[in-house]
């Protein structure tokens, strides 16, 4: 592997990411899968980085799941998205930050469509106006939440309590970075590092002391695939996808997986459990699984957040091996003790009704 070659490509795929004043929109499914992640994002942005992040109570689904599941027509999706933009416009923000990769992909796709077909944009504007009376401006900056964390990776590291380094050996942790398909595969120029060698997560990992692994099935989908997962009979395809990735990454002996998509951490995490149940196979060291994290969780760990505040107890593949390697202090007995999340300050209600 020639790193300089990769760096050359990364330098070609840089994107503009806003510095402050973010209009943050949550993901439909992340809130259920790993709710700690979005909370951690807000905590990092607001408390650690002291940024202005606004959340609108009237934000709805972007309808991306329906769009990719072939039940929502594109024009409907556009109108729903136009409404989100209207909320941003009304709130006085211009930097749109979705938490969801599929949303990010859909927004990118829609903006690109409008760019090439202004008449479609006009039609959507009319439809939105007619239906809701709202008007919108196109965001000045569209960045995925992981882009934002990527942008502030150095600032985060400046306040880091832990590094992605095995405390006992001093070796960097080997990290598999898994990028959501809708991040850059459709529009390579809209992703940090492009589609073939995305840098958005690698950049964080490198900055925080770890080392990313480039394994053959790196580009492969996690297997979520919407229709594959949603229909129970099709879930075999979904597991098979994840399995192909695990088989491929196994020889590299990864310590952990980092993801930036709502579905990927869920499936890479859950399918390890399912594969173990079905076939008795594990892919980590010492018969363990490979812990799977979202980038917010990793950032939170680096910043010294409590693992259970980050919601790591929600993972089916135990995350403790990584906690131990990083030397993170945590209390095992509190893992499943429900408590009010300390991070949610009264000033920042989750829902600003």
């Amino acid at each position: 592997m020639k790193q300089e070659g990769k760096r050359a490509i990364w330098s070609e795929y840089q994107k503009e990411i806003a510095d402050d004043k973010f209009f943050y929109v949550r993901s439909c499914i992340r809130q259920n899968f790993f709710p700690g992640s979005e909370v951690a994002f807000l905590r990092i942005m607001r408390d650690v980085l002291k940024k202005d992040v606004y959340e609108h109570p009237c934000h709805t689904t972007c309808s991306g799941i329906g769009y990719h599941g072939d039940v929502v027509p594109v024009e409907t999706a556009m109108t729903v998205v136009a409404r989100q933009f209207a909320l941003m416009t009304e709130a006085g923000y211009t930097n749109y930050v979705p938490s969801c990769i599929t949303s990010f992909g859909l927004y990118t796709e829609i903006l690109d469509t409008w760019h090439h077909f202004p008449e479609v944009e006009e039609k959507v504007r009319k439809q939105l106006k007619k239906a809701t009376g709202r008007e919108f401006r196109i965001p000045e900056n569209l960045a995925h939440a992981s882009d934002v964390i990527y942008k502030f990776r150095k600032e985060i590291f400046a306040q880091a309590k832990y590094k992605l380094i095995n405390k006992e050996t001093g070796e960097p942790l080997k990290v598999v970075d898994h990028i959501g398909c809708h991040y850059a595969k459709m529009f390579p120029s809209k992703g940090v590092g492009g589609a073939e060698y995305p840098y958005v997560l690698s950049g964080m990992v490198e900055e925080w002391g770890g080392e990313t692994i480039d394994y053959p099935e790196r580009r492969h989908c996690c297997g979520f695939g919407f229709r594959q997962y949603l229909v129970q009979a099709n879930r075999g395809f979904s597991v098979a996808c994840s399995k192909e990735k695990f088989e491929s990454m196994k020889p590299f002996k990864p310590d952990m997986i980092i993801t930036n998509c709502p579905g990927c951490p869920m499936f890479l995490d859950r399918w390890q459990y399912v594969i173990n149940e079905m076939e008795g196979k594990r892919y980590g060291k010492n018969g363990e699984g490979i812990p799977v994290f979202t980038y917010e969780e990793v950032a939170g760990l680096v910043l010294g957040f409590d693992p259970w505040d980050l919601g790591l107890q929600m993972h089916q593949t135990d995350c403790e091996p990584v906690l131990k390697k990083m030397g993170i202090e945590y209390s095992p007995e509190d893992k499943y003790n429900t408590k009010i999340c300390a991070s949610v300050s009264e000033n920042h209600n989750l829902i600003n009704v």
Partner: protein
Amino acid sequence: MEKFGFSISKGRQIDYEANDRRVADFIYEREPSFRLCIECGGCSATCTTGNLTKFSLREIHILIKRGENDKVREDIKKCMLCGKCTLVCPRGVNTRNIVMLAKQAFIKSDEYAV
């Protein structure tokens, strides 16, 4: 094992390294014209069996070369060895011998678990 209501699907991908290509090697060694096929499909078009059932000598050639033997093992028995394929082949591939050698190789692989 828990009941999940689904099982892990098997991929359609041909895993070249994992496949057993000894049947192909057996044929290559004995019938060099096996290499000459350009997959034009002339053989399949004239084939009596191919016109009556799902049987394609062209596909069989390629599957053997990739080591996808299980798909070929039963199918190849449908060949009548009539020789029309040999007559139409633009590359002079000795198709009948290939079928015969493949049959032989499968018998041997059954016997000695090649």
